[in-house]
């Protein structure tokens, strides 16, 4: 999955060029969405809170095309999506991480086929510090040594003060205060897998109920450090660079996140219960089409994520039988 992400977005970035500083461009090859008739009904989405805003923007956009479609959105964490899909209480299960094997099995046991994911957007996780913190760049080992108790990345000792990552003066003795997500969150799981090398979080990490709560925590704590989607950044915090395998520092920008050089980037998924032997009903089919349109990917930028390229859109549309 990571491979295909890197490849396709690298292509797109080359094609689009790095025009503006932060504002995103959208792949011009993506189709412009046009409404069809006869689409109406209720949809419910239960899952990731990272995707909460994006799902809301998508449904607002979808509703300008289909005024009487009602989409209800609940976001309490990616972990709530699989049970909702299994129970049939939701048609969309947005998740900020891929489903685990056990979750897929549970779904399969009920329906006899696997849930079908669509990749809706790309999200880079930023490691945020207080805006006055002079630290510029951390390696993955250092991030691991800050957040984990296991240090699976190979660091010798846990990092508890900012002096241990090379800060001087009044910063040298200032303790590191970690902010993270609660365990139902997909961000929590993804960060553990990638930045903690599969290790365990330190008990000192303050678990927060939402992505922007992490930011608010770091903003209010001069020694704070936390991880959250880059889209949630405010002027009160600073996203630091991460040192890649080649020793260079990379920022969480669209280019570096997309090309995979920035190491903590991922797809955001929307899982669905799609019977492989039946045609997808128009309501959900049109929603999928909307997501992979110019308008849908505009919404991605508005929500603070990085848009997809046509290449991925075509792959996923094919998987849904919508070409």
């Amino acid at each position, binding site marked *: 999955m990571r491979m295909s992400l890197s490849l396709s977005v690298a292509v797109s970035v080359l094609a689009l060029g790095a025009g*503006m*500083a*932060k*504002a*995103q461009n959208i792949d011009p090859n993506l189709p412009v969405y046009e*409404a069809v*008739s*006869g*689409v*109406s*009904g*209720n949809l*419910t989405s239960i899952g990731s*809170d990272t995707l*909460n*805003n994006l799902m*809301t*923007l998508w*449904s*607002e956009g979808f*509703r*300008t095309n*289909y*005024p*009487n*479609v*009602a*989409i*209800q*959105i*609940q*976001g*309490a964490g990616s972990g709530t999506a699989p049970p909702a899909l299994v*129970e*049939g*209480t*939701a*048609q969309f299960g947005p998740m900020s991480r891929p489903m685990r094997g056990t979750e897929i099995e549970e779904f399969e046991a009920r329906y006899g086929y696997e849930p079908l994911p669509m990749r809706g957007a790309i999200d880079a996780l930023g490691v945020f510090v207080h*805006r*006055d913190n*002079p630290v510029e760049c951390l390696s993955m080992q250092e991030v691991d040594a800050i957040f984990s108790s296991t240090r699976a990345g190979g660091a010798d000792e846990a990092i508890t003060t900012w002096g241990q990552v090379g800060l001087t*003066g009044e910063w040298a003795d200032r303790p590191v205060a970690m902010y993270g997500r609660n365990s139902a969150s997909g961000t929590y799981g993804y960060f553990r897998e990638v930045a903690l090398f599969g290790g365990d979080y330190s008990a000192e990490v303050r678990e927060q*109920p*939402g*992505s*922007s*709560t992490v*930011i*608010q925590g770091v903003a209010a704590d001069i020694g704070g450090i936390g991880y959250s989607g880059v*889209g*949630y*950044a*405010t*002027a*009160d915090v600073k996203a630091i660079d991460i040192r890649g395998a080649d020793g260079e520092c990379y920022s969480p920008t669209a280019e570096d996140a997309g090309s995979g050089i920035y190491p903590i980037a991922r797809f955001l998924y929307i899982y669905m*219960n799609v019977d492989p032997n039946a045609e997808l009903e128009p309501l959900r089919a049109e929603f999928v089409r909307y997501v992979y349109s110019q308008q849908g990917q505009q919404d991605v*930028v*508005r*929500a*603070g994520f990085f848009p997809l390229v046509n290449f991925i859109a075509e792959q996923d549309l094919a998987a849904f039988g919508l070409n």
Partner: protein
Amino acid sequence: MTIINDQRPPASGAAGLAGVAARDTVAPRSRRRYSADLSALGEPALWGFGGALALGIIMIAVFLMAVLYNGATTFWPKPIERVELTDGTVIAGVERRGTIYRPDMATLPEEVRAQVAADDGFAYRTLYQTANFDLYGDDFRWVADFEVADAANPADFYYFERQTWGVFVGRIAGMTIDGQEMAYDPAVLQREQRAARERFREIRNIERREIGGINHLIERERLNQRRAVLRQGEEAAAPVVAASQERIAELQAEFQELQARANEVRAVDRRYTVTLEEVGGRQITPEISQIVRYYPANTIGLLDKVGIYFARWWEFVSAEPREANTQGGVLPAIFGTVAMTLLMVVFVAPFGVITALYLREYARQGRVTSIVRISVNNLAGVPSIVYGVFGLGFFAYAMGGTIDQLFYPEALPNPTFGKGGILWASLTLALLTVPVVIVATEEALSAVPRSMREGSLACGASKWQTIRYVVLPKALPGIMTGMILAMARGAGEVAPLMLVGVVKLAPALPIDGFYPFIHLDRSFMHLGFHIFDVGFQSRNSEAGKPMVFVTTLLLLALIVAMNATAIIIRNRLKRKYATGQF
């Protein structure tokens, strides 16, 4: 004053102490009476009680003032500042707040170091809302005072509230009216903006009302087909399906017509655009209809400011949210909160009152009733999230799932009642608040004098007649008090609702113009959840902060209004009863 105090016993509070002081001057002999231990007098305890009360009042007052101040000032139009920085960049934005901080000396340029050092290493910085998220990729920026080369409030800067992408801050570079490019003319743009918003509402009206209605009918036909097939089998249902298909085709034709009409208006709309230029010179050209509101922030007069202030409040309470709930209004949330609370009262009132009536009037007082009472009281102490879990498991999954299988099989696997909805949410809250009502009703019933019951029974009334015509009317004000408490608790509760039907965005209200008009299965929005969501889940928490305060203010006002109504009703009942007695 002194005379009255002199007549009182000294232990009756602070007034007594004052009296003592007065008496002291007259008769020193009384000093002996106060040689007793200080704690025996009750005075220290009194000071403690008074202090605790004062502390409580102060805390509530500070909280209310904070909410009121932040909430009430949010919508006031503020000036735009154009700031030139020493490194040559120029920004324009609305000042939000400022703080004192200690800059890192090592990173400061040589010339400001001395200046900061002179202030003991402290400097001041200001947060500007620079807006223009589509161009910049962020909407806020901190600027330290020593970075500023020049600041001004240029007259040609406008503040735009847009339908999408949030706020824009910049100049108006030009406009296109009906395809004709022309220079900016304030009067023309003002007129055209109104016309464009009218077009926008027209498109929305066609889409929501008319197309929405057709879509609803098509969906119903589709479900009818499935129901027929499910009940009668594929073959027997063929005629029904065919008729329904025909009807759908008709509706489709109608839909095409409406769609064409909406597209016509849209085509017209695209001929009216305005070119906006941010402070750095980059331009965007949105349709005029995208501009919800705009004003020249630095030249606007007081009267216009007041106008904008109230227009924003009106939008807030009467419009739907936009930009993932961080802008626009909260009408669906207000509606959801009120509807859910009222529905809860409808459930909780009869259950609570009947239970209390039986417990107090009919049941034999003994061990069993004591156990029931203790259980009810304990129920009031169960954490609300537990009710939420119960509501989800029992109401939504078990009951709702069964209802779906029996009555709505055609919609499966999409659940109708088998998920969170306003019905299950109000039932869950009714469960949560029923102990309050039971306890209050029991208290009210036991407060009815025994003589009244006996009088009624002596006149030949049956037990039920006594309860119905004597006991209940007398107890009604007390029962209403219980109801008010239950309502206050229910309207402010959020945690269990998140599990049983509150959603971030519920585009359809639980009551609308489509048969059967009241849709109890629908999820709904709630002000309390809205506060949590905007404050802690929105992309830009900085931009969401003012909305949190405004929504809190509104929720408080709503609860006060609902309680006030209940209190007025209670007082009327009291009066009615008081006159009926004699």
